[in-house]
């Protein structure tokens, strides 16, 4: 009973909080904190249960699939839920000074809208992690897109509105492709539940050949999700959108939003349609990932604004995630190294979330201190805001994949799989990408460390500085204490060797 409640709470608490924040203006920050507390409680209840009982599921109102809505919590979902909760807590705490209504002054639109949108986004994310139904996932993705687009445009300036609109156009195209794919899939198989689809063995000999509709459907869904994940070459919307939003919003957008669609991709290809994943497809996805790594990194090197660097870094980091397909997908899923690659990709997603959020929050701190985020204004920031500089550096360590950090664990696992499976090319991409990210993250860091010509910075509260540091430390800790998350992720992992690499 309590477990069901907790499971529902993961979705309901942020949703209700969002509604409450709409109804009760000027108390958004407080309500958001209550939401954080609620989710935290739910997670605390769920973790031991998951460890004890394995996968938890709940059919809401007793309606089973395909008609009812089923929430299903596995280790993978829990890992993402926890990461999102951590990042959201940090973001909401550090958004307070910027978006909390001040006494005596009227509430601006962005101050009013931020809290419900953030909470809505959270709710949508949680649904995406818990749901096993492709249509429910569509709804979650749409909700996510709407909230994210609104957050991008929340400042209401021409640049951010354009970025939001562009984002929306890309995302809508993706949604439609996804929906069309879902419709075709339903037409062919009469169900949209991932587990039931998997049971039909689409693409294997059992289902008696492969229908063209299935192929088109898979293509449509994958393409739709790729656009939403900002996989190269559909990434062009991401940098302006993520860099145009206010820093806390950017943190959410960059760290969390692409993860939802990526997770669905993972579930689709690894759980629902594993037999449809031909080697060429996996290579295609891997190649696009590799291109994203290289392209995003090189473009990040080119930028002269901090938030654009960080945003392009997201493009590159998302590329890493797609290397999981050639490394662990298809036939190789049963191989011993697949577990390493698969877990590595999940670690990459988790640590990227933490580190990227930390980075955007750092950028927020510096924007407060300097007034803008152009690199040439960054001189002397390390002396003025040492904690933030340290946080940025730690986050960079994780993004570059240096030990000891979650990024390193991820990279190590994937690299080992690459070598063990003889797919050295992907290993090279990982290594070169790491070096490139070191190069583009070095620039702001070195500038921050340089002596300031005119060291006049606006003061930034210690709390605002502490939050990104904690997030970055969490990314590091993910690497230091990776044993627990590692085993947690394996819970409910389908049909493959869990023992890891020897």
């Amino acid at each position: 009973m309590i477990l069901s409640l907790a499971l529902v709470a993961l979705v309901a608490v942020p949703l209700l909080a969002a509604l409450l924040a709409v109804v009760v203006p000027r108390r958004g920050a407080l309500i958001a904190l209550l939401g954080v507390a609620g989710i935290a409680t739910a997670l605390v209840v769920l973790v031991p249960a998951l460890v004890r009982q394995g996968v938890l599921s709940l059919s809401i109102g007793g309606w089973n699939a395909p008609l009812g809505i089923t929430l299903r919590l596995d280790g993978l979902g829990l890992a993402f839920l926890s990461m999102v909760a951590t990042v959201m807590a940090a973001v909401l705490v550090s958004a307070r000074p910027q978006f909390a209504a001040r006494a005596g002054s009227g509430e601006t639109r962005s101050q009013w809208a931020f809290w419900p949108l953030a909470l809505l986004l959270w709710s949508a994310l949680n649904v995406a992690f818990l749901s096993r139904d492709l249509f429910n996932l569509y709804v979650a993705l749409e909700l996510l897109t709407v909230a994210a687009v609104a957050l991008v445009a929340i400042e209401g300036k021409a640049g951010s509105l354009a970025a939001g609109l562009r984002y929306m156009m890309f995302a809508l195209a993706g949604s439609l492709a996804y929906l069309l794919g879902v419709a075709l899939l339903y037409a062919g198989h009469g169900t949209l539940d991932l587990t039931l689809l998997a049971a039909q063995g689409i693409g294997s000999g059992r289902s008696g050949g492969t229908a063209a509709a299935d192929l088109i459907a898979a293509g449509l869904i994958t393409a739709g999700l790729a656009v939403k994940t900002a996989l190269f070459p559909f990434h062009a919307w991401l940098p302006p959108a993520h860099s145009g939003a206010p820093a806390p919003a950017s943190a959410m957008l960059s760290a969390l939003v692409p993860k939802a669609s990526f997770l669905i991709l993972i579930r689709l290809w690894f759980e629902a349609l594993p037999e449809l994943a031909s080697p060429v497809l996996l290579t295609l996805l891997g190649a696009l990932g590799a291109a994203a790594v290289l392209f995003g990194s090189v473009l990040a090197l080119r930028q002269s604004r901090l938030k654009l660097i960080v945003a392009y870094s997201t493009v590159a980091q998302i590329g890493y995630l797609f290397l999981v397909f050639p490394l662990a997908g298809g036939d190789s899923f049963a191989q011993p190294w697949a577990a390493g690659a698969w877990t590595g990709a999940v670690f990459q997603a988790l640590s990227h979330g933490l580190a990227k959020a930390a980075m955007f929050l750092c950028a927020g701190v510096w924007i407060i201190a300097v007034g803008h985020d152009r690199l040439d204004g960054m001189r002397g920031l390390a002396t003025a805001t040492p904690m933030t500089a340290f946080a940025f550096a730690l986050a960079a360590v994780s993004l570059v994949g240096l030990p000891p950090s979650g990024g390193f664990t991820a990279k190590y696992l994937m690299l080992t799989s690459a070598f063990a499976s003889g797919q050295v090319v992907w290993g090279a991409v990982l290594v070169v990408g790491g070096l490139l990210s070191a190069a583009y993250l070095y620039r702001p860091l070195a500038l921050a460390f340089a002596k300031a010509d005119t060291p006049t910075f606006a003061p930034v509260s210690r709390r605002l500085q502490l939050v990104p540091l904690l997030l970055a430390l969490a990314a590091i800790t993910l690497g230091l204490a990776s044993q627990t998350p590692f085993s947690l992720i394996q819970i409910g992992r389908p049909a493959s060797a869990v023992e890891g690499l020897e």
Partner: protein
Amino acid sequence: MIWASGPLLPLVALIWPLLLGVLASLPAIRPHALRLLPLAPLPALWLALTGVEGLTLAPNLLLGVMLAAGRPAALLLGMTAALWFAAALHAQGSMAGTRKPAVFSGFWCLTLAGNLGVFLAQDVVTFYVAFAAVSLSAYFLVVHEGTPAALRAGRVYAALAIVGEVCLLAAFVIGAASANGLLISDIRAALLSAPLGGVATVLLIAGFGIKAGLMPLHLWLPLAHPAAPTPASAVLSGAIVKAGIIGMMMFVPLATMAGSVLLVIGLGTAFVAALTGLRVRAPKAILAYSTISQMGLVIALVGAATQADGSDMAPAAFYAFHHGLAKGALFLSVALVALSTGRWRNAALVLVVLVALSVAGGPLTGGGLAKAMAKSGLGSLAEFALTISAATTTLLLGWFVHRLSASAGKAKASGGGRPTMLVVLPTVGLALAALVMPWWLWSEWSTLAPDYPLRLAAVWSALWPVVLGMGLIGVMAANRWPVGTLDEADPLPVARWLARQLSPLRAVPKHLARTRSLAADQIVATVHKGSRWLAQETGAMEGGFLRGQISGLAFLTFILLVAAVSVP
């Protein structure tokens, strides 16, 4: 943990000067540091006089120190200690009030310890350490005066000394590796059969040759001797060069070509140096050439002994023993003559002539005895050369006496021209020792009859070359000495020529600097360039991806691609 075993005296003899050296650096003692110097060689002198049997071991020091006073080594050890003692006394008088007495004293002690160490060492590491100590610390004695000439001499000295050290180190490691041990006797034996034994032997001869003034490695001697303070010149010429001699005695493999080579080069050095010495004018520089010449003879004797079974180093040691005392006396007398006037000066010059005769091997002198003993072990040709060398030596030392008597005095007007006894006594003492000691030790060291030096044949064979030399002196004097045109600071045209030939090498570092950009730098530069180009291109592409048409087309292509490649 055992720190030392066996007789302690050898260890004490080495450590004692070091302790005094440290003592000299204490602030309270610094101004009077010179007074400590005579004390430094006393334990070694005691050791040489009493003799100590057995091996001294200090297993924790260096790579395990082994000391013993072997037979020829003990003779040289005693000479060395006595010479250092006399020079130290002399320094009290001749160097009173000199600059930086503490530094001088400190390095004096260090040099002394090294000089004694080379005679006592039984393992190659201790030997090398001692050799380096005597070799390199002597630098500070050379440059003590701080004049440009002294500094220049010091530079040449240091450069050659370092090269010598490197040669020796290379030879020693080859030897130690071949012998699989550090004992000098083992190494000498092992070099005979080791694959690199020949290379090692050449390196040994070069390394020791530099120290012993073997031509053409002698360049430092004529520069360093005039530049150093007189007591330092005395020990340099009398004792320190013997470090090279003892090295050759102990290391050069027996019964090989090496002995013959040493014999030939040694004899050559003896004559060339004697004649070259005629071309310089400073008394101490002339003495330096004399030393080179005499060392050439000693090396020839060592070579002769090495050529055979090497058991009979006695003639070489005996000759070196006498030369050390006599040459020390000559150097010290340079200061004596300079410091005295009137009859004192004349008396001093007489003493100089006596010692010079001894060095030339005049009959009945100590040098004559040494030469007689030396001749006994040589083949007829070498014996003849040795005999003739007495004539050239006589000529060279005659030139020395001439220059010395012509040199201006430094004595103060008052005092009746009598120099301080601190200068007189050590000089006279050394001179007497040089003349007399060989008589005393004759029976112990020589295989010849005790009365051999007194026989007419012996006297005659010693006398005629000296007379011949004197005749030459007469001829030269009559022609107002048509020699002495060589600048002391530039001992050999060969050196100048060599320097000119090597001068392009000076440009090598500069050339290297120009080619600084190594592969890594190039790679970095190329990467930079490439990445800039890449950034431009990708930037242009990015603009395309933003457009709805292009990305829409890409989108559709992607859908179809996924569908197409999913076909199992």
